[in-house]
């Protein structure tokens, strides 16, 4: 590792995450980075939109540690919506965004946890991003889950609660509709996005198309 300038563009964490000083990360305690993740400048990561019923449970202030504690099944006896919401919160730790290893968040990309109105309660759900994921410039991602080796192109929009399976490829400027599922190896494009093709069998091989994550990580900040 070459010696770093004391005030470089990137902060490198213990696990090797390279995070631009000029990125906008909110609610850091609700974000888990898997290590060796790159977050470029002006990327917006909304960890503050973690799962809490924003309407009625303002009294419940959850910290990450407390919500980890109990994992019992919620009893259906709770009568109010706020009770149900807090039960749900206890079930899952309030992690808003998880990003795997060697993922790359380009400049001005926005990661925002998905949300939906469920039984009258507007709630955020965690956004899970896998390993070797590339998020292009100015892309907006609100997916529920993004698998490994997923490529999200420039200016793409991934709608709320969408699911991108492993090796999915979102073309530049595509608009993946809310709730859409993109199967593995599929290429989607257009607005609204449709499956327009498939990537080759060799996609994701180290060093080839889809397998450039380590190389991308390596050159950042040098």
């Amino acid at each position, binding site marked *: 590792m*070459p010696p770093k300038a004391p005030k470089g*563009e990137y902060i490198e964490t213990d696990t090797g995450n390279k995070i631009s000083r000029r990125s906008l990360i909110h609610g850091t305690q609700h974000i888990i980075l898997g290590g060796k993740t790159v977050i*470029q400048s002006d990327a917006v990561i909304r960890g503050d939109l973690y799962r809490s019923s924003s309407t009625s449970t303002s009294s419940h202030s959850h910290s990450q540690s407390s919500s980890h504690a109990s994992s019992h099944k919620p009893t*259906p*006896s*709770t*009568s109010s*919506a706020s009770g149900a919401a807090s039960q749900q919160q206890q079930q899952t730790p309030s992690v808003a965004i998880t990003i795997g290893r060697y993922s790359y968040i*380009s*400049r001005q990309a926005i990661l925002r946890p998905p949300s939906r109105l469920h*039984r*009258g309660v507007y709630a955020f759900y965690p956004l899970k991003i896998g390993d070797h994921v590339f998020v292009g*410039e100015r892309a907006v991602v609100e997916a529920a889950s993004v698998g490994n*080796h997923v490529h999200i192109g420039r200016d793409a929009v991934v*709608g*709320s609660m969408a699911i991108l*399976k*492993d*090796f999915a490829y979102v*073309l530049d400027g595509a*608009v993946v*509709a*809310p*709730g*859409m*599922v*993109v*199967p*593995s*190896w*599929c*290429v989607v494009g257009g607005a*609204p*996005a*449709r*499956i327009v*093709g498939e*990537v*080759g*069998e*060799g*996609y*994701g*091989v*180290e*060093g*080839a*198309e*889809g*397998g*450039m994550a*380590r*190389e*991308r990580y*390596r*050159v*950042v*900040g*040098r």
Partner: protein
Amino acid sequence: MSRPFPYAYISCPCANTPVPDPSKKRRSRESPQKASSHHPDQPKPPPRFDDSEDEQTFDPRAPRSNLSLYPPEHLLYCEDCHQIKCPRCITEEIVCWYCPNCLFETPSSMVKSEGNRCARNCFNCPACTAPLAVNTLENVVRGGTSQQGPWVLSCGYCMWSTLDIGIKFDKPTNIRTQLAKLTATDTNPSRSRQMSRTFADLKSPLSTFSSIDEQFPPAPGEARPDDSPDQSNGPLSPDARFHALKSFYKTQISATSSSPSDPLGVDFGAGFSSPGALNRIMSLYTSSSRLSSLYGGASKKPKTKPPVMREALTASEGFKTPAADAEAVLIQRMAADECGWDGLASLEQRVFQSPDARFVEELLPLATLLRTKRAKRCKSCKHILVKPEQKPQSTRFRIRLIALSYIPLPTLRPLVPPPAAGVTSGSAPGMNLDALPPLRPTQLLLTLKNHMFDPVRITLATPSVTPGRVASKVTILCPQFDIGANSDVWDEALQGNTTAAGAAAAGGGTGSNATADQRSSRSGAAPATATTAAPGGHLGMFEKVAEAGKVWDKGRNWTTVVLEVVPGTLPSGSSGVTLQSRDQAPRTTHSKTTGNDSDSDSDTSSFGGQAPDWTGQAAEMQQQQQQQQQQQLQPDEDVLEIPVFVRMEWDSENQIDRPGVSAAGEMVKRELAYWMVLGVGRIDPSVLS
């Protein structure tokens, strides 16, 4: 999907064999040896594609090249043929059908019977094709149990919902059957209410009718006595009509087929889809009464007159008579204020709908089309090349022989000259590949990475001047080099590369050590790569100068050589004028127009009296247009693409594939040769020579 610069495409050798011919393929296995003798420095005449051996310089701009150039990850490799296989030289077999939305597998028997659409809750929006979600209308939470009302399908993209066509569902499951019931009864609530038959009801009367048909062969035009008026008038849903028509013609065929053993009556398939079916031909000559009566069979008592098929006549048979004023009604409806432009369904929307659907309110949600997972076989030797696991969600492969594990992986990046390195700290480090300065030498680093477990000797060859009008000079400073074997256990590199080779090497403790070693050796030499968003790296270690005949850098299983490119000038703007004068002086370069002139003699003879006036204004205009077209920059003509011929040689252990020829374990010399195209960048049009 166009790629950002720089890219590397590989040409599948199959492009030179015009028709996939197994015998030819077998012969062409030996062709690379001959091809290697080709001298790179002499530009050859334009390629003749009837030749199976690629003796010519590959022209990436030739129209045929489109068909053979593939990104490396799309290519497979057949271990039996020892050849690269592109999507053109493989056959596919369906492994499983699955819904891309719910990712459930559909058994192929069900696909045959029910059609290739998801039978669950997956629908696409008829207005915009986005997937529809099942949503509830009522959201009342009472005493812990939530009361949830009727359900609708709604689109999260264009906000369309089934409420727009007046459909609600009672329960959130089995939407497909619910929808089928609803649409079978009232597709057009505005028009018909009298029909309240489901499809199941329709089937039974039809079967009785078909038996009636056999009893009373009806005269054409005769009205059916047993049709109740509401039934004949009531329009069926398109689906029900299709089924009614299908079953009607099925019964017609079974009724009119001459012999009981004839498979004609069983299904449409045997008799009608294949007129050459043996059974049909046999029955034509043996059991047909007509022929036997013709050829001396007159003595035999002719059989009964063959029954004649008739067409569908009534609504219950699927026949539909549009109302007399149907057109007028449609037009009135279109012209009405409440319809307007937005009320009309677009052509794209109507493509997937029933042919009667003209308005937005007639659009029905579309059940999601299924997708397939496919295994791939070599077309010539039928060996299986790719076999994915059957589970739709699985991304693993049982067999995956991709070309990348055999041929070296090419990566190209610009070599940033020392002064430029510190200057640009913008988006692209050093060099803007979208605006290459013409006539200025540019150095590029070409890295070839070996994924095989044997060391490989590589010979690169390239035409010194790229083919096409924009002639760029290319020199490979070190055209011959070795790449080390991919011997070390480096699980990081092989992770996800689940070929047979990769699996064999997985595991082992030295992996991390090797990566660290590799990284450090690379970081010293590799300058900032062309990752678009990487901020400019300014390392002061570019004293290294590219030398001819020496490799730039070398690692465990990769080697980097330097390519020197002098991009040519573009024939546009003021430079176009010079090109014009150049073009007109020697007529040989003017191939298109001269070709026309010389052809004109033979053309006039075929034109009869009216010989085309080549001296007239029209011809002149045409010529000028052609000239202009030639002068103007064709799309993507400014892209600098370098054809590179790669020939690789290696000694490999003889694989198990041919036990008779030589014993396993013996070293066999192998070679493989192919063309690859390196897309360097776009030549800057603003810089004029």
